[in-house]
């Protein structure tokens, strides 16, 4: 797990991360590294804390214990100007897109450019329309309000917003959920392109194994608050880990027991 691509310090280094909500322990000593320019996919059952993990790294949730380092800088508990500076490195696609419904679509996409980087509105709009085209949406969609979009369209706008500021680190929370298979593949290609052309490091969450195989350099499986297996995507079919095998083949029988009965 602590293997490092080409000897550079990891872009993200997480050690011993603990997060609980009241008595419910969600993350229980989680370790994870993302190297520079690496694409890591986190898989794991619904409700295991994948979204919580991303929110802890972004400082939206405060972990009880553990360390998160971005480019070697500790970010847990960072506030004010220092935090703003670190946040500028990130782009995030939220699971439910989280578009600003008081703004038209193009302004959603251009938000980081206008507010964060102080770009001129006309220029930012042009830029936003390019980004919308990259996720397969026409310029006319830019004038709509987010409430007028379908779920899949919203997801793609969220994606365009996440990559608009060309961040160094991009988080994708289920980027292809709710998209048709063809559009799903377009998005996969887009993520691969972000990593290759922008040199971005990405941490993605997905339940879609086809997508994981396509975008991941490395896959990590989250179970019971820990990463129980992590390895190159090529090894995922012979991981010798029963949990991973059960998950990637989507079998109901195996070591992972879903709580479907109140017993």
């Amino acid at each position, binding site marked *: 797990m602590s293997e490092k691509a080409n000897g550079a310090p990891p872009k993200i280094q997480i050690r011993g991360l603990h997060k609980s909500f009241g008595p419910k322990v969600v993350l229980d000593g989680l370790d994870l590294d993302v190297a520079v320019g690496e694409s890591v996919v986190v898989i794991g059952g619904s409700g295991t804390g994948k979204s919580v993990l991303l929110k802890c790294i972004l400082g939206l949730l405060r972990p009880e214990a553990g360390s998160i380092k971005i480019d070697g800088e500790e970010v847990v508990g960072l506030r004010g100007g220092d935090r703003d500076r670190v946040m500028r490195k990130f782009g*995030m696609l939220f699971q*439910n897109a*989280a578009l600003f419904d*008081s703004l038209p679509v193009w302004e959603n996409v251009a938000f*980081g450019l206008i*507010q964060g980087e102080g770009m001129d509105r006309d220029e930012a709009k042009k830029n936003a329309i390019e980004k919308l085209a990259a996720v397969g949406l026409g310029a006319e969609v830019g004038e709509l309000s987010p409430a007028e979009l379908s779920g899949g369209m919203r997801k793609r706008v969220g994606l365009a917003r996440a990559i608009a500021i060309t961040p160094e680190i991009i988080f994708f929370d289920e980027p292809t959920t709710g998209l048709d298979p063809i559009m799903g593949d377009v998005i996969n290609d887009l993520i691969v392109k972000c990593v290759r052309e922008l040199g971005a490091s990405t941490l993605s969450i997905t339940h879609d194994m086809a997508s994981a195989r396509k975008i991941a350099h490395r896959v990590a499986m989250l179970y019971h608050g820990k990463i129980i297996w992590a390895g190159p995507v090529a090894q995922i079919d012979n991981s010798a880990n029963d949990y991973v095998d059960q998950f990637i083949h989507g079998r109901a029988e195996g070591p992972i027991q879903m709580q479907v009965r109140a017993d």
Partner: protein
Amino acid sequence: MPILQPIGRTLLIFFAAAGRLSMFAANGLSHCVRPPLYFRLIARQMIDIGYYSLPVVGLTAIFTGMVLALQSYTGFARFAAESAIPNVVVISITRELGPVLAGLMVAGRVGAAMAAEIGTMRVTEQIDALDTLATNPFKYLVAPRLIAGITTLPILVFIADIIGVFGGYVVSIYKLGFNPTTYLKNTVDFVQTEDVVSGLVKAAVFGFLITLMGCYHGYNSKGGAQGVGAATTNAVVSASILILCCNYFITEMFFAR
């Protein structure tokens, strides 16, 4: 001491809430005076709070002025003191009824809408999204609303004062048979700068309280539609109560010596 326990617990909860609210207010106010300011957003809030509240505040003011003239007439006629009506109308409107009634109406209209909007943004993770786009939610959401509330309410109340006095004038002239010139002269001669200024100071404070409550309850709402509903109710109720409490203390500050 089983009776003291619940009292102590309630007090602790109260102090904790007061502390959180003070931190929130201090944070919001500090963003009001630190650049950059979002003038576009401030302008939009001012239009929302001021311009769109004009009809409801105007109606409240005119009927209040009218009923005030009518009531004081029926009362004062017993002492043959009808000539005091212009004075009663103008002083009650500028000092008390203008700011308080406008404040309560705006609390219902604007405070609720603010809590609902910010609350929805909270539960749909839009506030988190703001944060990840390197935009401080206090600067982007709270500060423009506070600034707009503090600056717009005095203007709104000033207009309400004029409309209220006009309401009293209309009833006095057309129903009670006053002489228009005498009525206006009495009004203008009697009213003092302090009356109007104290009302406008109240308005600024109420504007702050309304927007603060809207933002605070919205910002801290949790748990979906139900949570947003609760935030909305809490924002209106707490703003209304605070308005009535602060009204007393500001009055005492200005007029009790």
